[in-house]
């Protein structure tokens, strides 16, 4: 079974600084997809960024980028120029190609210090 591990239950960052959230996963598959979701205090789950395992280029969405290391099974999220609105729980998720199932990590609570 696939597992997703987020080893940092909580993190904090100064406003305007950069922070990196860690995620590792365990799979024997070669074709899969990885996602980062954000859950602010409003509870709404929002997709931040996603990566296809067969693409070597790291995905980027504005201030959000990932460092995807397939051999190490690592998928970290970097948030640049952190803003107060980035404060939220961040969940890393994995989906095997051809599967409907998303497997989530336990989340990292990010606080942004003004």
């Amino acid at each position, binding site marked *: 079974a696939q597992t997703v591990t987020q080893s940092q239950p909580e993190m904090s960052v100064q406003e305007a600084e950069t922070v990196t959230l860690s995620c590792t996963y365990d799979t024997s598959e070669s074709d899969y*997809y990885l*996602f980062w979701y954000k*859950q602010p205090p*409003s*509870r*709404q*789950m*929002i*997709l931040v960024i*996603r990566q*296809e395992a067969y693409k070597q280029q790291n995905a980027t969405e504005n201030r959000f980028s990932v460092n995807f290391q397939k051999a190490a099974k690592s998928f970290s999220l970097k948030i640049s120029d952190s803003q107060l609105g980035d404060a939220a*729980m961040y*969940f890393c998720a994995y*989906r095997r*190609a*051809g*599967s*409907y*199932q*998303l*497997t*989530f990590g*336990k*989340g990292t609570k990010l606080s942004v210090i003004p």
Partner: protein
Amino acid sequence: DTAVSQTPKYLVTQMGNDKSIKCEQNLGHDTMYWYKQDSKKFLKIMFSYNNKELIINETVPNRFSPKSPDKAHLNLHINSLELGDSAVYFCASSQGGGGYNEQFFGPGTRLTVL
């Protein structure tokens, strides 16, 4: 217009009661999901329907029964509620499910069993 809506947003009830949570999506998606988020924020898939057909049925008590009257609706009925059922329940939808597709989440329903 809300893409994925759930009613009610909050539900407080007594142990032993039967309750339902409704979910509707107006995105034209063919796949819908129910997730449970426990008090530690861990998010786990419960059920998934594709074109009204049950495709994911994780190990949940059979007191939980999903019903999909059409592709735009997926309701969750819970019989004989127990204290441990207290959680936030999220509905989600996607177009297909086996790949890169984003899952869109509803706002969640916080269920409290007294």
